[in-house]
């Protein structure tokens, strides 16, 4: 089969709830289709594998032009959430709760659970050394299954021949 050796590598550079999911969903689909998966977490993306942060990822309504009032189930069409409202205390937590509730309804696993599934399915997770040093993190800060802290050069070596997706 031509797919036998197909490899995909994701670079996760964002730590918001909405940007956590693309690599998880696509990585899981790739594993299901017999594709090797490597995920490299860098910069804010480290929040996804930081065991103190992974359950507290958020989405902020401020300056998010895609987030409309209708997300709250109101029939308001394209009316956005005013930025002036978004700055009020609690709005980020509120938006996050709405999104998490929606995902739970669709039986989408949490980020922590998704990572476990990926590791169990054979995906390899790595943390970016420069970011780890910058944020003062250690291997113990990461969820189980993170293989190692590696440099950008290591990442290039281990993803030879892979399709690379930057998120």
């Amino acid at each position, binding site marked *: 089969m031509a*797919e*036998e050796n197909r490899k995909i590598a994701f670079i996760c550079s964002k730590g918001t709830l909405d940007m956590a999911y693309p690599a998880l*969903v696509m990585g*899981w*689909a790739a*594993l*299901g*289709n*017999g*594709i090797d998966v490597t995920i490299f977490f860098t910069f804010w993306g480290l929040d996804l594998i930081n065991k103190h942060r992974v359950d507290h990822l958020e989405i902020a309504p401020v300056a998010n032009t895609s987030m409309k009032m209708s997300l709250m189930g109101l029939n308001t069409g394209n009316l956005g959430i005013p930025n002036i409202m978004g700055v009020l205390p609690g709005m980020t937590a509120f938006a996050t709760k709405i999104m998490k509730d929606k995902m739970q309804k669709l*039986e*989408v*696993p949490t980020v922590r659970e998704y990572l*476990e*599934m990926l590791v*169990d*399915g*054979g995906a390899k997770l790595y943390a970016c050394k420069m970011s780890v040093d910058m944020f003062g993190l250690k291997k113990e800060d990461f969820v189980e299954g993170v293989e190692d802290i590696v440099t950008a050069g290591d990442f290039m070596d281990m993803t030879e021949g892979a399709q690379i997706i930057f998120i």
Partner: protein
Amino acid sequence: MATRVIAGKTVQVNEEGFMTNPAEWDKEIAVELAKEEGISELTEAHWKVIEFCRESAKTSGKAPTLRQITTGAGVSTKELFALFPKGPAKKVARIAGLGKPEGCV
């Protein structure tokens, strides 16, 4: 719609080799399809997954996703990937005589 002979029976298949009529499926066909997928012997654990998929498809009309299998059949993700290595999502559905699973998780 193409047809092919598996385990002495003529069945309908689509262009990707998935059976299109679950009613034409039987256990001998599953054994043959499993061999094609590189699984030489179907153990009890394999059958548990296959039977869960058949049951699930009977009620929903479609093949369950990997996560539906792990939560529904009581198989861990690790076991599932060990039983059907290299792409369980497609392999399980194909061996169970179902279409490709619809859904992302």
